[in-house]
C-alpha cells in the first residue's frame, strides 16, 4: 500500500487558504467601493457648490442670472409641501395601521389590504405623478398648486408610513393593553391612551424618514408640471410652487446653456442634503432616546 502523499494535500490547503484571503480582500474592496463613491459624490457636490452658498442665495428670489439667483422660494415650497403631506399621511397612515394591527380580523380582507400596501410601495413614483396629474390637477381642477403636489406626495409615501406605524404598534408589549383592559378600559380607550402613546416615538421616526423621502422626490412633481418659470414666493397651500429637487433638476438641465447653473444645482443639492441629514439625525435621536423604555 502506498503511503499517503501529504505534499499534494498541503498544496491544496495552501491554495484554498489563498483563495479565501483573496476573496475576503475582494469582498472588502467592494464595500470600500461604495464608501468611495459616496465620498466622491459628496466631495464633488460640496466642492462645487459650497462657495455659492451665502445669505443672498438662501433668501433670494429665483433669477435667470446665475449670480443673483436664490432658492428661498424653493425652500418655502418644500416646507409648504410638508405642511400638506405631514397631517394627511399621519392621519391615513396611523389610521390604517391601527385598523390592520388592532381591529381587523385576521383573514382574507386583512391580507388583501396588506398585499395591496406592499404592491403600492413598489409602484414607481412617476406613476403616482400621473395619478396626481390626472386626478388632482386636471379632474379636480386644482392646477399645479401646493395642495395637489402635497396630496400626490402623500399617496406616494403612505405605504412607507403605514408599514412603519404597524411595526411601532406591534412593538408595544401586550401586557400594557392587558393591564388597561383589566382596569376596565374599553378597546378604543386602550388604543388612545395606552397603545398610541407607547408607539408614538416609533411612528414619528417612521414618519420623519418617509417625509425625508418625500422631500427628495422629484419625478411626481415633474409630471404634475411645476413650471421652470419665475414664480412668486408661495404663501399658502393654494399657491403655485417649486421645491428644491425641481430647482436642481432645471438647473442641471440648463447647465449645458449656462455653465454656472451647474454650480447653482450643486449648491442647492448641498442645502437639500443638509436638510435631509438634519431630519434623519432627528429621527435617529428620537429612536435612541425612547428605544429601551419597556
Amino acid at each position, binding site marked *: 500500500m502506498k503511503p499517503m502523499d501529504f505534499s499534494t494535500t498541503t498544496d491544496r490547503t495552501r491554495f484554498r487558504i489563498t483563495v*479565501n484571503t483573496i476573496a475576503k480582500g475582494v*469582498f472588502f474592496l467592494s464595500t470600500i467601493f461604495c464608501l468611495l463613491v459616496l465620498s466622491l459624490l459628496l466631495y464633488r457636490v460640496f466642492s462645487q457648490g459650497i462657495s455659492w452658498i451665502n445669505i443672498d442665495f438662501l433668501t433670494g428670489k429665483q433669477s435667470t442670472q446665475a449670480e443673483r439667483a436664490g432658492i428661498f422660494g424653493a425652500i418655502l415650497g418644500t416646507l409648504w409641501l410638508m405642511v400638506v403631506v405631514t397631517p394627511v399621511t399621519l392621519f391615513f397612515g396611523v389610521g390604517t395601521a*391601527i385598523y390592520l394591527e388592532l381591529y381587523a380580523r385576521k383573514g382574507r380582507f386583512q391580507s388583501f*389590504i396588506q398585499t*395591496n400596501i*406592499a404592491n403600492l410601495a413598489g409602484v414607481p413614483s*412617476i406613476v403616482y405623478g400621473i395619478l396626481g396629474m*390626472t386626478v388632482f390637477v386636471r379632474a379636480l381642477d386644482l392646477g399645479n398648486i401646493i395642495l395637489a403636489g402635497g396630496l400626490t406626495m402623500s399617496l406616494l409615501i403612505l405605504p412607507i408610513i403605514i408599514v412603519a406605524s404597524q411595526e411601532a404598534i406591534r412593538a408595544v408589549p401586550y401586557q400594557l393593553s392587558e393591564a388597561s383592559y383589566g382596569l376596565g378600559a374599553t378597546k378604543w380607550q386602550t388604543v388612545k391612551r395606552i397603545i398610541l402613546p407607547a408607539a408614538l416615538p416609533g411612528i414619528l421616526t417612521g414618519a420623519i424618514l418617509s417625509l425625508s423621502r418625500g422631500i427628495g422626490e422629484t419625478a411626481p412633481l*415633474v409630471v404634475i408640471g411645476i413650471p421652470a418659470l419665475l414664480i412668486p414666493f408661495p404663501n399658502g397651500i393654494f399657491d403655485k410652487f417649486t421645491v428644491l429637487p425641481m430647482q436642481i*433638476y432645471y438647473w442641471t438641465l440648463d447647465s449645458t446653456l449656462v455653465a454656472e447653473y451647474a454650480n447653482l444645482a450643486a449648491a442647492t443639492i448641498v442645502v437639500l442634503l443638509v436638510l435631509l441629514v438634519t431630519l434623519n439625525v432627528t429621527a435617529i435621536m428620537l429612536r435612541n432616546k425612547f428605544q429601551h423604555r419597556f
Partner: protein
Amino acid sequence: MQMNVSVRDLMRQQKKRRVYIQRLEKLIPFFLFIIACGSVLTTLGIIYTLLSNAIAFFSHVSIWEFFTSTVLKPLSKEPQFGVLPLVAGTLTSTVIAMFVATPIGLMVAIYLSEFASSRARKILKPILELLAGIPTIVYGFFAFTFVTPILQKVIPSLEATNILSPGIVMGVMIIPMIASLSEDAMNAVPNTLREGALALGSTRFEMALKVVIPGALSGIIASIVLGISRAIGETMIVTIASGSSKNFSFDVTQSMQTMTAYIVEVTGGDAPAGSTIYYSLYAVALTLFIFTLLMNYVASMITKKFKEDY
C-alpha cells in the same frame, strides 16, 4: 343646600356616558375601516386612470402597432407610436445597472454577514443607508456632470447624453438595496449550518459559497428582482443623463429614452389634453406599471415558494 343631585340623576348621567362610550366603540372600527380603504382606493385610482386613458389611446393607435412598431415619432406630422424604442432604452439601462449592482451588492452582503467584525458592520451599515437615502436627482446630477465626462475620456465616441453613465450610476444607487436585502436573507441562515461547514474544514469563503448562499438563495434572487423593478421605474437619473433620442438601438454610447423619461418629456412639454400624444403617456405608463408589478409579484412568489424554513 348643595346636595340637590339625587342618586337617580347620577345613575342617569352614568348611563348616558356609558351609552356614548359604547356608541364610540362601535363607530371607531367602522371609521378606521374607511381610512384603511384609502390604500385600496389609491390602487383602484391608479388602475382606473391608466386603463381608461390607455383604452382611449388604443382607439387612435392599434395595440398591435404600439407593441410591435420600432418607430416612435410622437411629434412628427404623421405621428407613429411604437413603444419598443422605449422598452429597449429601459432594458438597456436596467441591464447595465444590474451588471453593476448585482455582483457588488452581493459581495458587500457576503462581506457584511460573513467576514466583517461586528464593529466594522456598525460603521459600514449606516454608510450604506446613507447611500440609499440620497435623492435620485442628486445621482442624476452626479451622472450628468461627473460620470459622463470621465467616461468620455475612456470612450471618446460617447455622446454627452448616453445610456451608459446613468445605467452605471443607477447600479450604484441599487447596491445598498440588494446588499441589505441579501444580508437579511443570509442572516436568516442558522449558525449551526455555518459551524457544520467550518467543522468539516472548509474555509470561510467555501462556507459562504456552498452553505450560506444556497441557503439564502430565495432571498438573494428576490432582492435582485426587486432591484430590477427599481431600475425599471427609476426616472430622474435617466431623464437628466440619457437624453431623449427615440431610435430603436442597443448602442450604449448613444442617447436612449426610457419609458419613464418619455413620460417626463411628454408631461413637461405641456401636451394638450385629449391629443394622441397625451394619451400615449398613459399607454406607456401602463406598460411600465405592468412591468414593475410583474417583477414585484415574481419577487414575492420567490420568497414565498422557495423560502427555506430552518
